[in-house]
């Protein structure tokens, strides 16, 4: 049975892993390879690396650390940060990344998704979506450039229409980051994720809000997502991945148990 994936997310800035609350006020957590090894050894199913300043600074991420990860890590990993062309993506994939994730550059030029799909195949094209719940209108709205609070802005898309569009263009997986929940550890936005699940035929990864092991169990059972991404609960040692896997397994959620 296909296991639900537990995916630590490592936000990279200036060659180190950082973490902020609601995308603001970044603090250094540790070295890229050191944390990647720690998480893969403790049973992470996949890793995601976001070089958060790349898109904001309008440049491609630093590909040098990507090869180092590919050399030492034996689980799949996805890399994001300022990939805005087939040539950019080729540079990252050649280093050994299994997937690339695009976000703001896809909003600026949606055809990029199709170009990447046609060149590399659907399986390695992940689209990250930053979705903000606007209480006034009761709608979910797509934001861009969220790596920098000064550059972050609302886009022309509502989340549901963007989810449909990226699938039509060839996205192989969607990471839905629920911005209102990000970094505050109050649980995933299960209602929003359930709504998106209903219109998402490709793997859907929940992001934003994990605080307890029960939050992971809830998002898998309530929203039927394929994976759950989290950062601060792992960075701050609030949740041990191996224990999380045991917990999920005891709740009859398909998990890959290590050791």
């Amino acid at each position, binding site marked *: 049975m296909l*296991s639900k994936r537990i995916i630590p997310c490592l936000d990279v800035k200036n060659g180190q892993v950082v973490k902020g609350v609601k995308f603001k006020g970044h603090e250094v957590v540790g070295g890229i390879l050191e944390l990647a090894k720690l998480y893969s050894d403790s049973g992470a199913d996949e890793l995601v690396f976001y070089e958060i300043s790349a898109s904001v600074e309008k440049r491609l991420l630093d590909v040098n650390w990507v090869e180092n990860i*590919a050399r*030492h890590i034996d*689980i799949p990993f996805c890399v994001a940060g300022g990939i805005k062309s087939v040539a950019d993506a080729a540079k990252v994939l050649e280093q*050994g990344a299994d997937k690339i994730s695009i976000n703001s550059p896809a909003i600026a030029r949606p055809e990029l998704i199709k170009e990447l799909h046609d060149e590399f195949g*659907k399986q390695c094209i992940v689209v990250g979506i930053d979705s903000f719940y606007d209480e006034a209108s009761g709608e979910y709205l797509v934001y861009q450039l969220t790596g920098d609070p000064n550059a972050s802005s609302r886009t022309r898309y509502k989340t549901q229409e963007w989810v449909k569009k990226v699938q039509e263009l060839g996205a192989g997986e969607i990471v839905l980051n629920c911005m209102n929940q990000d970094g505050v550890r109050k649980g995933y936005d299960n209602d929003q994720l359930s709504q998106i699940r209903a219109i998402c035929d490709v793997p859907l990864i929940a992001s934003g809000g994990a605080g307890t092991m029960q939050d992971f169990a809830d998002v898998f059972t309530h929203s039927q997502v*394929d994976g759950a991404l989290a950062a601060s609960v792992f960075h701050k040692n609030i949740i041990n991945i191996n224990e999380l896997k045991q917990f999920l397994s005891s709740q009859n959620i398909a998990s890959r148990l*290590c050791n």
Partner: protein
Amino acid sequence: MIAIINTGCANINSVRFAFERLGVTPEVITEPAQLAHFDRAILPGVGHAKVAMERLINQGWNEAIDEFQKPLMGICLGMQLLCESTAEGNVTCLGKIPGSVSQLDIQGLTAPHMGWNNLTHCIEHPLTNNITSNDQVYFVHSFAHSVNTSTLAQGEYGQQFSAIVAKDNYAGMQFHPERSAKVGATLLQNFLNWQL
């Protein structure tokens, strides 16, 4: 000495690094004439079967692979290319492994089949040494090989399919052993130990 066949359409680094973690340094080869000098070889593959098969033929790999008498293993699309034919682009493949490849009947599950899934029905063979049916490996694919006499281990996603196959000196793994943690390392070590 182990060779990794590079036709220009696969991620070579992750396979190369996986062998390096086992203490072996593979050589990436781009000329079919080089193949005969090696003791064993890996045919990786990612992308569309039609494009990959055309490259194999245009670069002359089909003959070199046909003449190769030592262990040769395809990974993911590489495994599918060793079979008789595939429905992806309706292409005739190398015909080294009996059976054809068709689109997975996923029964409403999300596509592609992506993530960690367990092996089932493992048959005793040097390639499945120390592997049990609860071991999980990392899959990413939409097409799959039908279960037949060449099947050493199966996978299930909507339907049963071949996860590991072998016939004569040719073998294949549908998943990515290079990205399958300790289980993957065991499987790659099994390939290195495989004596015909």
